[in-house]
Structure formats: structure tokens, C-alpha cells
């Protein structure tokens, strides 16, 4: 590699995390640590009904008996769950309109480029912004209301639509599903609730921006999306977090339910603080995401671009129960410096003629480790099921690792399962071709990586696709060589 490129690399490597700033807002905090008292306190604070408190306590009891999973290819110092805060919210009361929102907060959103005001209208995006734990602003409620769509913080849904929440909460990811899901079930603070009634096509793309802000505050969002018969919705989730030295735990749970002919598209761009070049700081992102295709011909599609977090532990999955239901997983996971990602999907084929597609692109640079871990399971009843999986890994530099751990289990002879995986580095001839056309090495690498990820990026909604491409280039720039 040329000297000039190396100079550029060093320059870029020294770049600070672009979104690393914090907002000074008075925080209302509970004591550190976790106990039944804290669980009761969270529940009381939110004025939750008895059944939900019981559900939380049951989850907490289950969590106490569980052990932190060790099977993923990730390493971190032990997490002291008693040193964390389990609830934090801006101290002021819930604002009724944007005018009432803390100006500091609005400034933060502006820095993040969240289209909350007019820009939101132009972009056609309704935003349920989660600032730490309480949703503080929700727009476009009326438009959505006219269509019969419910899009609100889940704490509000518990009050306003208890029957829906009670029916679906924990029905896809049970309270004791896994260590982090159990923890989330016990202490979840807030999150989004989406309900699309029968036959409704959601008039706009729904979007939530998450932001971790309070020092030492674990974030435990809970998202629940239900699409009734024939309904459809596209949901966007985007994340940035301020720069912190301490590692922060994030254990979210996302549940999707699709009934007959319903379609849910869930897109994520995850760009939380990854820690510095030496692996100091950064977010621990331990997320359980799962969708249930309960109805005939229902469809759930996960698209994710994961560039942030010190550690990503995330397996958005589909339970394909309804006859003819479809599951999709499109993923780009990019790790640089000391980042660790262990991500993939599970496709569980239960119903007849179910089909799933998995496209995973992993890019490792610096000293990072990037693992694809996935399961395709065809149950005996899933006649005519079909799966196609492609996982490709790209290595940039010889200090990083790229790993592939797919599990394929087929118990039905009429099912067809195909799996392909490749690992390679950026081809010299491609680089040479680009450079001979006058592109700098940096630009050439950016171009090739974007091409490598094209199959996934094209699945993203417009707003995200642009952001994601920039994100890939920025995340990579410091590492080429």
C-alpha cells in the first residue's frame, strides 16, 4: 500500500466518533442494582396493572436462575448487573407537543438529523423517539390514527390498549426465553408499540430513534409490532449513542406478529458507539428479535446494517408457522478496531410451503471478530419448505477474524435447503481496475465494499439506504490497509 494511503488511514483512524456528544438534562434515577423492589418500583412508576407486574416478577425469578450464555464468539469482562441503573428518564413531565420538549433534547435530535419537525413531514416519517427510557415525542399520531394504526410508547399502550398488549406481549419471545430476554422482561422501561388493524396498509414508514444517554444506564426497550390480517407496515430503527468510557449494556427485545396475509418489514441501522481503537468503551448490544408468521402467506422481513457497538449479539429470527409464510433476513455486519459481532438468524419452518431467504454479508477489519451464526430448521410438517442461504465474508487486514457457523437441520424430505458461504479478501484485480480508472484506494475499497453489500442495501427503505452507504464508508475508512 502506498505511503499516501497510509497517511490517509492514520488521519482517518484518528477521527473521533462523529456522534459522540452528551446532553445535560437532569435525570431521575433509581438506586443502582436489581431486586424485586426495583422491579416493583419500575412497574409502580409506570402505573402498570397487576398482571404486568406479575409477569415482570416471574421473568425476574427466571432470570435469577439463568446463566449468562457463553456460546457466542465474544469476550468481555464480566458484567456487574448490580452496578447498573435499571431505569432512567428525563425528569420533566411528558410534553404534549414539540414546544414543550426540552430544547436541549431537540438540539440533540437535530445533531442526529432526526426529522422531528417540518423535515419529518417532508420525509414522511413518524418518529417515536426514545430518549433514554421514556418516549418524549410522537408525531403524526393523527394521520396514523385516521388509518386506525396505533403507534405509541409501549407504556402508553399498556394503559390505553391493555387487551392487545396482554394478548401479544411475550407471545413470541417468552419472558424466560433467554438470559437477556428475561432481564429485559423484568425491567423493560419503554419502547414502541405498533398495531396495524385488519386490511390496513400503514400510510407511512414508522421510525424510532434510540439513544442511550445516561451514564451507567442499561437500556431495556421492548418493541411489539402486530399486523392483523392483510395489514402491512415498514418499521425503521436507527441508533447512535454518545461517547462514553464505560461499557453500556443494551438488552432489547423486539416481537413481531404477522397474521394471515400480513407483511412486516423491520429495518435497522445500528451505529452505537463501538469503543475506541483500543477497544475501550462501547455498547454491549445483546438483543433478542423474533417474528412470528402466524397467518397464511404472512411475511416478515428483517434487514439490518450493523456497524456500531463494541459487542453485537443479535439473531433476528422468524417462526414460519402459517402455511406459505415467508421469512427474510438481509444483514450487513461490519466490524473494525476491537469490535466483536456474533450475529445471524434462525428460520424455523413449521408450516407447509414456507420459504426463507438469508443473505448475510460480514466485513471484518482492524482487530475485530465477525461471526455469522444461523439456524435453518425444517420441522417434519413443513412439506415443500424452501430455504436459500448465502453468507459471504470479506476480510480487510490480517489481524481480524471472520467466522461462519451455520446449523442446517432438515426433517422433511420434500423440503429443499441450500446454503453457500464464501470468505475472501478484496480482490487485487478489482482494486487495480478501480485505481486504473483514477479512484483513490480508499474510494476503491468503499466502492467494492458497497458492491459486496448491494444485495442487502437494496432491501433498505430509501431513507436508510443512503445513510447506510455513508455509514459503511465512514466505518471502514480508518481501517483500509
Amino acid at each position, binding site marked *: 500500500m502506498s505511503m499516501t494511503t497510509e497517511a490517509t488511514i492514520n488521519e482517518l483512524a484518528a477521527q473521533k466518533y462523529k456522534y459522540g456528544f452528551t446532553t445535560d438534562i437532569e435525570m431521575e434515577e433509581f438506586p443502582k442494582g436489581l431486586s424485586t423492589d426495583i422491579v416493583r418500583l419500575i412497574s409502580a412508576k409506570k402505573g402498570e396493572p397487576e398482571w404486568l407486574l406479575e409477569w415482570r416478577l416471574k421473568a425476574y425469578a427466571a432470570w435469577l436462575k439463568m446463566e449468562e450464555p457463553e456460546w457466542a464468539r465474544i469476550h468481555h469482562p464480566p458484567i456487574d448487573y448490580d452496578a447498573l441503573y435499571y431505569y432512567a428518564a428525563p425528569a420533566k413531565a411528558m410534553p404534549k407537543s414539540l414546544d414543550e420538549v426540552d430544547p436541549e433534547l431537540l438540539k440533540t435530535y437535530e445533531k442526529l438529523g432526526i426529522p422531528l419537525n417540518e423535515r419529518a413531514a417532508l420525509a414522511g416519517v413518524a418518529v417515536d423517539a426514545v430518549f433514554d427510557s421514556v418516549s418524549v415525542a410522537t408525531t403524526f399520531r393523527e394521520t396514523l390514527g385516521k388509518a386506525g394504526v396505533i403507534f405509541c410508547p409501549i407504556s402508553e399502550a399498556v394503559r390505553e390498549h391493555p387487551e392487545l398488549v396482554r394478548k401479544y406481549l411475550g407471545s413470541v419471545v417468552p419472558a424466560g426465553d433467554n438470559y437477556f430476554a428475561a432481564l429485559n422482561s423484568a425491567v423493560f422501561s419503554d419502547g414502541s408499540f405498533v398495531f396495524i388493524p385488519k386490511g390496513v396498509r400503514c400510510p407511512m414508514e414508522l421510525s424510532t430513534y434510540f439513544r442511550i444517554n445516561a451514564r451507567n444506564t442499561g437500556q431495556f426497550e421492548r418493541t411489539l409490532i402486530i399486523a392483523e390480517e392483510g395489514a402491512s407496515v415498514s418499521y425503521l430503527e436507527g441508533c447512535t449513542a454518545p461517547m462514553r468510557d464505560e461499557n453500556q449494556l443494551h438488552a432489547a427485545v423486539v416481537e413481531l406478529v404477522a397474521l394471515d396475509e400480513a407483511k412486516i418489514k423491520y429495518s435497522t441501522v445500528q451505529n452505537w458507539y463501538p469503543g475506541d481503537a483500543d477497544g475501550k468503551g462501547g455498547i454491549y448490544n445483546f438483543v433478542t428479535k423474533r417474528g412470528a408468521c402466524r397467518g397464511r402467506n404472512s411475511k416478515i422481513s428483517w434487514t439490518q446494517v450493523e456497524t456500531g457497538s463494541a459487542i453485537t449479539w443479535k439473531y433476528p429470527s422468524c417462526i414460519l408457522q402459517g402455511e406459505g409464510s415467508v421469512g427474510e433476513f438481509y444483514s450487513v455486519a461490519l466490524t473494525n478496531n476491537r469490535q466483536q459481532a456474533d450475529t445471524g438468524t434462525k428460520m424455523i419452518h413449521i408450516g407447509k410451503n414456507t420459504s426463507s431467504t438469508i443473505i448475510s454479508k460480514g466485513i471484518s477489519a482492524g482487530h475485530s471478530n465477525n461471526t455469522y451464526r444461523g439456524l435453518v430448521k425444517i420441522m417434519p410438517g413443513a412439506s415443500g419448505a424452501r430455504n436459500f442461504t448465502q453468507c459471504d465474508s470479506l476480510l480487510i487486514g490480517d489481524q481480524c477474524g471472520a467466522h461462519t457457523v451455520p446449523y442446517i437441520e*432438515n426433517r*422433511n424430505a420434500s423440503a429443499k435447503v*441450500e446454503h453457500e458461504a*464464501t470468505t*475472501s479478501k478484496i480482490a487485487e484485480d478489482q482494486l487495480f481496475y478501480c485505481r486504473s480508472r483514477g479512484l483513490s484506494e480508499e474510494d476503491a475499497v468503499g466502492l467494492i465494499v458497497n458492491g459486496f453489500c448491494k444485495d442487502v442495501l437494496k432491501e433498505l427503505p430509501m431513507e436508510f439506504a443512503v445513510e447506510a452507504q455513508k455509514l459503511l464508508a465512514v466505518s471502514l475508512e480508518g481501517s483500509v490497509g
Partner: protein
Amino acid sequence: MNALPTRKLEAWRYTDLRPLSAISFGTPPVAATAPDLPDLPFPRLVFLNGALNSALSTGFTHAKPFAPFAVRGTQPMALINAEHAGEGINIEIPAGQDAGELLLVSQASGTAPFAFHPRHRVKLGQGAKLTLIELDKGEGTYWQNAMFEVEVGQGAKFQHFRLQQESTDAFNTTSIHADIAGDAAYEHFSLTLGSKISRTEIEANLLGQNALAHLNAAQLLGGTQHGDFTTIIRHKAPNCPSRQTVKSVLAGRARGVFQGKIEVDQIAQKTDGYQMSQALLLSPDAEMDIKPELQIFADDVKCSHGATIGALDEEQVFYLRSRGIPEADARQILIRAFLEEALEPVTHDASKALFEEVLESWWGRQ
């Protein structure tokens, strides 16, 4: 005895040894029946119930007296083997010699369940050559837990062809640990037809530049048989190729397993790893579990794997039918073609002929 592995161990998640642990195995009885040996004009070493039978063996120039040796690695079955220190072959081919072929026959039979734990050692000096044809057969309930310690010296070539036709009441667990030096080759092919439960576990270490490992297998299973082929190829030097083709044909309620891990160390630049596993499910109750795994720490590598599981391709069936071939015949032709392909990695003519004959008779029974 060291504990048998349970499904809680990640490497054993698809193979349940409880049917084996439920049986109490005694020591091997003195064998009564003489084995039917294949008509192959090669020197042979014949083991009856785990003991070398010199009357039936021809002797082999490079066979040394058996001497127990320390077992390396931490595979649970190898540890159990180490504990029992059974008899086995001890072959050393001096540098530069082409030792030709050697038949290794194991025949087991007895009335009460028994177990034997052969420990084999094969060492090839620099530039040496050997083709080992291993035949495992038997009747009744028994457990063969074999261990192979293989060393392939610089530029040497070791072909290892196995035909496992144990009794369907028997258990066969075989662990192979192979160290392969620079420019050397270890070519392995296992054809598995027998055993109630079987598992072949191979660890191949590519230690020098241009070392090569071919770990191929075919499994033809029916009834309630369970066959597991598990491999780890460790690329520990630059420029090493590894190749794997694993084919399974599953009838009845049979269950096939393939777990193939390729590890590429940071030093192993220019690694070229390829792995393909395909399974044909002939009955609605058959099951196939595949776990191909890549662990890569070098950047200038080319590694890929592919896996397919399914029934016969209906388009191919249609193509043949459109040429006037009745459906039943068309299906038969396609299954035969799949099996033929499975034998492609066997480059040794006499072995291939033997495998083909066995395949023919398996097919006749289905």
C-alpha cells in the same frame, strides 16, 4: 472409564450416545467365525474382535510390533480409547518408499455385547507412499472405538479408504488425528453403510506449505441408523488446499450428520478451502443435520462451503420422463448418479471397484 460425551457438548449436539451407554459391554470373546475376506491381491492384517490374527494375516514388511503410544488431543472418544489401550497396527514407511497397498480388516462377532478399542499408528517418512484399505464388518452387538494416529512426512502421500459395514446392532466410533507435513497429502474417504450409531471424527493439521487434506465421505443409511461424519481441518501453514465432498443418502428413519470445521490461522495465507455437503432424503422420516463452520484469521484466503438437503430434483425427473423413461426408472437413475458422484474422490481403482460393488448391493436391498 472417561465419561461418554452427551448432547450438551456442542460437538455432540446431533449425536446421542444414550443407546450406547445403556448397554453394558464386556470384554471381546474369542472369535469363532472366519471372516469373508475380499478378493484383493494386497498384503493384509486381520483383526478378529480386536485381536490380531496372524493365521489370517499375510504380514506386511513395514508393520512393527504393536506398542501403546500416548494419545494426543482431547476428543472424548480418543480419551476413552487411550484408557483401554487396545491392540492395533503400527506402520512405519521409511523415507522414499512406495509401500503400495495394505488391507486392514476388522471382523467382530459374539453372543453377548462387547467392546474393543483398537489403537492404530501410521507414519510415513519423507516422500513415502501408502494406500490403506480398511474394512470393518461384524455380527451382533458390539462397540468398536478405534483411534488412528497418522503422521504424513514431507512430500509423502497417504491414501486412507474406509468401508464401514458393521452390524446394524453395532456401534462404531473412530477418531483420526492426522499431522500432515509440507507438500504431503492425506486423502481420506469413508463409505459408511453399517452400525446402529456411527461417528467418524477427523482432525487434520496442515503443518507445512502445500500440505493437502482431502476428507471425503459417503453415507448410505436406512432403518433407524445414525451416521455422523465430523471433521476439523486446521490450516497452520500458508498455501495449503483442503477439499471435502460429503454425500448422504438417507432412507427409512435414518439420520445423517455432517459437521465440518475449517480453521485458518493467521499465518495460513493463500489458503484454499472448499467443502461441499449434499444429502438426499429418500423417505419422509429421514433427517439430515449439517453444520459447516469456518473460522478464519488470515485475510488472503479463499474459503467456501456449500450445503444442500432435499429430495430428488423434480425437474431432472421430468427431463428423463420427457425422454420416455418411466418415473420409477428415472428416480433410480438419478439416485445412482448421486451415489456415483460420491465415489469420485476415490482415485484408487481397486478400492473404487470394491466400493462400487458394495454400493450396488446396498442399492439392491433398498
